[in-house]
């Protein structure tokens, strides 16, 4: 009983240390966000020297996933975890609602409008809803709410492209997903 408790404590301390390592791994496309901020790290499991990090893609075809996996393995190796394995899962599907508050603020400061909090849950599939849907994105540069969607598809699969009607600057919006 006592042994089990000690082991579980050691494990969790170990896992905490691993989470801190993962917090230093940045998204290659949005380099101000760590993979932890982004919410794509779904779990860390240790078994002796073996570490399993579970991640989930933002979009099925996200080309950054291969780089992210490699970056995680590199960071882990550098920090003394050479026997790390990265597992990719699709379920439960990633949602922008998993973005941390700190992550949202970092996005805004970087010039990307963050997704509306809780916005992903409101998305519907009926055609009337799809045609009427307008995601709002306040301008990350001047803060104005008077902005215009240019294209629902932006520089990466997770972003759409907007222009601010007040300061006239173009900007990316991390779309609700």
């Amino acid at each position, binding site marked *: 009983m006592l042994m089990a408790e000690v082991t579980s404590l050691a494990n969790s301390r170990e896992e905490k240390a691993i989470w801190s390592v993962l917090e230093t791994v940045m998204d290659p496309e949005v380099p101000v966000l760590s993979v932890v901020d982004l919410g794509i790290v779904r779990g860390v499991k240790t078994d002796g020297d073996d570490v399993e990090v579970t991640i989930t*893609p933002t979009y099925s075809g996200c080309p950054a996933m291969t780089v992210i996996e490699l970056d995680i393995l590199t960071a882990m190796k550098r920090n003394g975890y050479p026997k790390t394995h990265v597992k990719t899962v699709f379920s439960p599907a990633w949602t922008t609602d998993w973005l941390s508050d700190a992550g949202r603020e970092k996005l805004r400061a970087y010039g990307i409008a963050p997704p509306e909090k809780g916005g992903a849950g409101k998305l519907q599939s009926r055609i009337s809803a799809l045609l009427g849907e307008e995601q709002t994105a306040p301008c990350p540069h001047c803060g104005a709410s008077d902005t215009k969607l240019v294209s629902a*598809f932006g520089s990466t699969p997770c972003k759409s492209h907007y222009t601010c009607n007040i300061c006239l600057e173009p900007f990316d919006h991390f779309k609700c*997903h």
Partner: protein
Amino acid sequence: MTTATSTPTSTIDKNALFTYALRLGDDALILSHRLGELVAHAPELEEDIALTNIGLDLLGQVRALYTYAGQVEGKGRDEDAIAFLREERDYKNLLLVEQPNEDFAHVIARQFLFSAMSLPFYEALAKSSDETLAGIAQKAIKEVRYHVSHSAKWVIRLGDGTEESHRRMQDALDALWMYTGEMFVMDDVERAVLDAGIGVDRESLRATWNDTVTTVLTEATLTTPADGWMASGGRDGRHSDHMGYILTELQFMQRAYPNMTW
């Protein structure tokens, strides 16, 4: 791709499940290839990015579906072997997705007619008893929603646009309509997978699809083509002339440099 998967359900005929995953993957791969042909050829920069982003979403779905198909088959084939090293008859995609780009209206019509089926399909598949397919579906729903909305808005813009854009949009719908029937056919494979609690009743998707198409075409001032003779054969590997040309390009690197890797 190292994707965690559940063990394939034992009560289902492995062959049927393999073919099912393959069909879904082939639909997405061939459509994704058609969209890929538009890189740097779309009418404007934003549209170039949009169409290829849609293609990229589809390609992501393909990778997961082929990886799973390979695991179910159990012959050691990975996603690349399935994508690149098959003969034309072994591809089981819908005839609709292999139809050529022609003009922008054809690209939009093909996308809209397909995605309007795909969305309710994946919503149903998300409830599958097969955890891997359900997981792929849950992910795909979020992506396909944008595909429906994007293509529907273009159908409306072109249909309710100028005389020329209206004519082209109507022509594209009329030309592609005969490939839509195949999307709802339940054959032995579809039925076996449905009976095992894994698949989707494609006939039941018709109502939602009809509603989506009618709503959008009405808004677009376009005429819904009448149902007539419907082409089929894709699910059994009998393709239109276009398929061979697609594969020539898609498989070129593997044919010219066997076993090459990036």
